[in-house]
């Protein structure tokens, strides 16, 4: 582990991805699931920027990272709006309670 090695960044990104996947798999709260998705997107972003810095030498990876950040913002806005709509309908945001399509 050192700041001048690609593998240390990839390791951090792998751990973040695993924690995000754990959150998505086990949580029953819709907002927590969205937090796990944010962690997964961030780990992918770290990989993009790390490869752009150490392997390619140009800034294409950073541009993809900015697109991912933009899509994450759109996803958070729509996802949380859907969570609020589910809460209005079912009065809970437990994903298991909201598995039916009618109220």
């Amino acid at each position, binding site marked *: 582990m050192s700041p001048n090695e690609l593998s240390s960044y990839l390791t951090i990104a*792998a751990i973040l991805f695993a924690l995000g996947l754990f959150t998505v798999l086990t*949580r029953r709260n819709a907002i927590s699931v969205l937090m796990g998705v944010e962690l997964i997107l961030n780990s992918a972003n770290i990989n993009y920027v790390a490869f752009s810095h150490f392997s390619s030498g140009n800034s294409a990876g950073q541009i993809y990272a900015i697109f991912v950040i933009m899509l994450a913002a759109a996803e958070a806005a729509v996802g949380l709006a859907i969570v609020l709509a589910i809460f209005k309908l079912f009065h809970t945001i437990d994903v298991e309670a909201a598995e039916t399509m009618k109220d």
Partner: protein
Amino acid sequence: MTVSTAVFYLIALLTIVSAGMVAFSRNIIYSAFSLLGTFMGIAGLYIFLGADFVAAVHVLIYVGGILVLILFAVMLTHRITDVTITNRAAGSIPALIVIGVLVYFLIQTVNATPWLKAKEVVFTATTATIGDAFLYDYLLPFELASLVLLAAMIGAVVLSRKEIKD
């Protein structure tokens, strides 16, 4: 161990410990606030990688936008006066085993693969390069991104507005 290595370890620790809090905390408010530590740590990693513009954008959008949005959603969907704001989890043990195996193989692969190396690693200001790239090589994706954001904005308004029945 130089100062920059020590700072790197500190930032990596902050990122991973806060992400662990997000994944394992029993209280969703703690989870939401731990996300702040994760996002700040990731911004620090971007600075170590020489991506100054991405780090600034990351702090602006994630901490200033998405995190505030998540906190609003938490507080709109739970009665804050309740003593226990639970964050129920299910199937933790099988998920932990799967995640453990996955992270083991990921780290094995990371360390075993001979990654391509750039000729030289440079630290320069990236903002001008990124601006040029957005307006020449990536112009179409850039315009599509604005359309996606417009669609997401309209979608969020339509989904979360109050239904008025007459």
